[in-house]
């Protein structure tokens, strides 16, 4: 909380060196004891910078991640699926907002973070640079991409920074329906007509490897991993999480009656994990660099929405300036009833 004030947080360079050392010791002890760091606590500058970058990238991924799925809202093949998909894409906007809000507790401004996204100075998850070519892709995204995201995110509910951990608790709670709806969607296709089954298999073939890349480069090539693990803003290594994900997916794919496109997949009794084939890291780095199938399209749609919305945001700000004081709490409207559309909650039960 008290986000604006976070700017004023005491910084190391303002302090006597002895003080800095003492603060750092308190910080390190708190992290070691699995306590949460809160916005106004002293923290190393590098910790603050890493967190802002990580939360912003996460928020950007939610926002850009709306596009490949929104691509199918207008073509959803049943009204039930359409409702589920709209609710899911809406959740992603919501998750982006939670995460920007968490980043703002450290003194970053959303406007600035969005600007960094729009100008390519901050990244989003590369997975969203792949296109959604058929309806089954909506299912594959739910099952594999959201599945991988959840594998990544659940441990972050225990990350050392309080606002981030709390945002992740909320996100994970809401995401559980995302993965289930994807699985259910694919199951319906797999059990449907031959064309539907083929559509599902094709989607899984295209999304499997990019999903594995979502966990990031192998541990020995991961630039920020060691420090992030020490700070507990990352709780498991990339390779650990990837293994965990593969172990979860293999039996799920079997029950979907779909195959995973990897001839090397087999259970390794000794390791207690599935072995899997080599990942094409050249593809990963190329997509990350901007050469994926949809990089340009995703960013330009985002920029366009933002630019075309400027006059609307300006209008609301101008209206607020004119009518300053005649709003909200001052009029005694502080308590709003929040009943009406609450039944959308049922969406999670349905999926």
């Amino acid at each position, binding site marked *: *909380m*008290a*986000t*604006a*004030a976070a700017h004023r*947080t*005491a910084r190391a360079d303002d302090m006597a060196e002895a003080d800095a050392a003492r603060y750092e010791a308190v910080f390190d002890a708190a992290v070691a004891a699995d306590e949460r760091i809160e916005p*106004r*606590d*002293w923290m190393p500058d590098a910790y603050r910078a890493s967190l802002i970058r990580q939360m912003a990238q996460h928020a950007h991924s939610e926002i850009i991640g709306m596009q490949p799925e929104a691509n199918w809202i207008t073509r959803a093949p049943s009204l039930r699926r359409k409702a589920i998909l709209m609710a899911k894409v*809406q*959740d992603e906007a*919501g998750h982006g*907002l*939670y995460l920007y*809000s*968490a980043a*703002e*507790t450290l003194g970053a*401004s*959303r*406007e600035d973070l969005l600007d960094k996204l729009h100008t390519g100075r901050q990244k989003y998850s590369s997975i969203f640079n792949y296109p959604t070519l058929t309806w089954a892709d909506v299912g594959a995204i739910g099952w594999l991409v959201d599945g991988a995201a959840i594998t990544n995110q659940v441990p972050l509910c225990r990350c050392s920074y309080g606002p981030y951990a*709390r*945002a992740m608790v*909320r996100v994970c709670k*809401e995401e559980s329906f995302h993965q289930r709806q994807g699985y259910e969607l694919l199951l319906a296709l797999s059990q449907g007509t031959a064309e539907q089954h083929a559509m599902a298999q094709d989607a899984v073939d295209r999304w499997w490897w990019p999903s594995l890349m979502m966990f990031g480069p192998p541990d020995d090539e991961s630039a920020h991993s060691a420090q992030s693990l020490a700070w507990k803003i990352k709780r498991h290594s990339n390779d650990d999480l990837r293994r965990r994900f593969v172990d979860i997916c293999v039996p799920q794919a079997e029950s979907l009656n779909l195959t995973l496109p990897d001839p090397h997949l087999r259970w390794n009794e000794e390791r207690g994990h599935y072995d899997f084939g080599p990942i094409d890291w050249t593809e990963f780095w190329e997509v990350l660099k901007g050469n994926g199938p949809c990089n340009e399209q995703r960013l330009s749609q985002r920029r366009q929405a933002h630019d075309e919305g*400027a006059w609307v*945001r*300006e209008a*609301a*700000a*101008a*209206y*607020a300036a004119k*009518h*300053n004081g005649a*709003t*909200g*709490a*001052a009029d005694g*409207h*502080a*308590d*709003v*009833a*929040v*009943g009406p*559309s*609450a*039944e*959308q*909650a049922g969406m*999670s039960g349905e999926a």
Partner: protein
Amino acid sequence: MTTEDWPLWEVFVRSRRGLSHTHAGSLHAPDAEMALRNARDLYTRRGEGVSIWVVPSAAITASSPDEKDPFFEPAADKPYRHPTFYEIPEGVKHL
């Protein structure tokens, strides 16, 4: 702040009657009326609340980390304020 930047608001949600409003997060809105509406959409999509407060983030005064010790330590030496301070013989219920 540029003309199109909206200020930040802190959102507090009463999850059900009988409980206090609890901090849920923050959001941007041009004014209090829109902040309330945005908060309703964002933080109570799944029926998480019966009432919402929004407060301009800039209006919140917080204790600073330097003051942390005097602010929060006195309570720590009054353990008798906490129920676990008291030993109750086994078998006594509803306490």
